[in-house]
C-alpha cells in the first residue's frame, strides 16, 4: 500500500501527467514538458513519490556507448497507487469532475487531462 504523501499542486500536476497515460513510462523531461514544472521542483517530487511506493522507475533499454547519450529513466505510476492518485485529484476537484458539476470555471489542462476546478 503506497504511503500517504503531501498533495501539493505540483505533486498533483505530476500525478495528472501519469494518469493521462497509464501505459507509457515518462522520463523527467517528458513530465517537465507536460507539467511545465522546473527540474528543481520536479525531481524532489519524483524521488518522494518513488520512495513512498507510488512510482516505479526503470532505465531506458539502450547501450549509452552505442547511442552516444545517457539513458533516460522512465517512471510509471504503480497499479496500486492509481486509485489513490485519482482519488487525491478528485478530492481536490482536479480530476474526474464533469463540466456540468464544475463551478462554472473553464477546464484547465493538468498533466494532459482536462480538469475542472471545484472553486
Amino acid at each position, binding site marked *: 500500500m503506497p504511503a500517504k504523501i503531501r498533495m501539493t499542486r505540483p505533486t498533483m500536476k505530476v500525478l495528472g501527467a501519469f494518469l493521462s497515460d497509464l501505459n507509457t513510462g515518462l522520463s*523527467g*523531461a517528458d513530465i517537465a514538458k507536460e507539467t511545465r514544472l522546473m*527540474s*528543481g*521542483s520536479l*525531481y524532489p517530487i519524483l524521488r518522494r513519490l518513488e520512495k513512498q511506493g507510488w512510482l516505479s522507475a526503470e532505465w531506458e533499454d539502450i547501450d549509452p556507448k552505442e547511442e552516444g*547519450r*545517457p539513458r*533516460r*529513466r522512465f517512471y510509471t505510476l504503480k497499479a496500486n497507487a492509481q486509485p489513490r492518485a485519482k482519488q487525491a485529484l478528485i478530492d481536490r476537484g482536479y480530476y474526474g469532475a464533469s463540466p456540468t458539476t464544475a463551478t462554472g470555471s473553464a477546464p484547465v489542462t493538468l498533466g494532459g487531462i482536462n480538469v475542472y476546478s471545484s472553486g
Partner: protein
Amino acid sequence: MFTLLDSVPFVLFLGVLASLIAIMISNWVGPKAKSLNAKYHMDSVSMSLIDRAVSILPKSQRELSREEWYAHLLDIEPPTLRLTHAVNCIRAAMIISSEVYVLAPVGQAISSRAVKIAAGFSTFRVKLFDRLTLTAMRYESIRLFVEIFFSPAKVILALFLIFMDRRTLFHKKKLYKILFKDCFYVVLGTIIIFTTTRILKIFLPLMNNLI
C-alpha cells in the same frame, strides 16, 4: 625608381609567405575558436553544474541522478534552456538532500530559538551520520555556525552541548574536524573583516588628508 617590391618574384614570395602564415594562424586559432563555441561552452557549464548538484546528494543517489539529469539536459531544446535545467538541478539536489538527511529541521530549529538548538543538535548528532555526505555536512555546518555566530547565547549553548556530549561525539572525528574548521573560518573571516575595517578607519582619513 625600381624597388624590390616591384619585382614579381618577390611579390609572389610575399604572397606565398602570407598564405603560409595565414594557414598556420588558422590552424592554431581554429580549434580554440571551436572550443569557444557558445553552445559547447554552455553545455559544459551545464554539465559541471549538474556535477556540482550531484555532489550534494547522498552517495547512493549520485550516479543515478547524474545519468538521469544528463539525459534530461540533452532532451532540452533550445540549448540555451539547458543552463536553467542545470541550475534547477542544484535546487533539486538541495531539496532531496535536506529530505534525506533530515537536516532542514536542524537549520530551522537553530534559526528559531536557542532552546530549540538542543533538539536540533540531538537530531543532527543521533540520526544523521550514517547517511551524511561530507559536502552536505559542510553546507549544513557552515549554515549552522554562521547562524550560531550571530548570537553569543547560541554559541555558548552549542559549545556547552558539544562539551557535554564530547564522549558521544568522540568517534565522530569527521564531524568534529569539519565543525571546528568551519567555525575557524567564520572566526577568521570575522577577524579579517574587523581588522581591515579598523585599518581602513585609521588610514582612510590619513590618505584623504594626503590627497
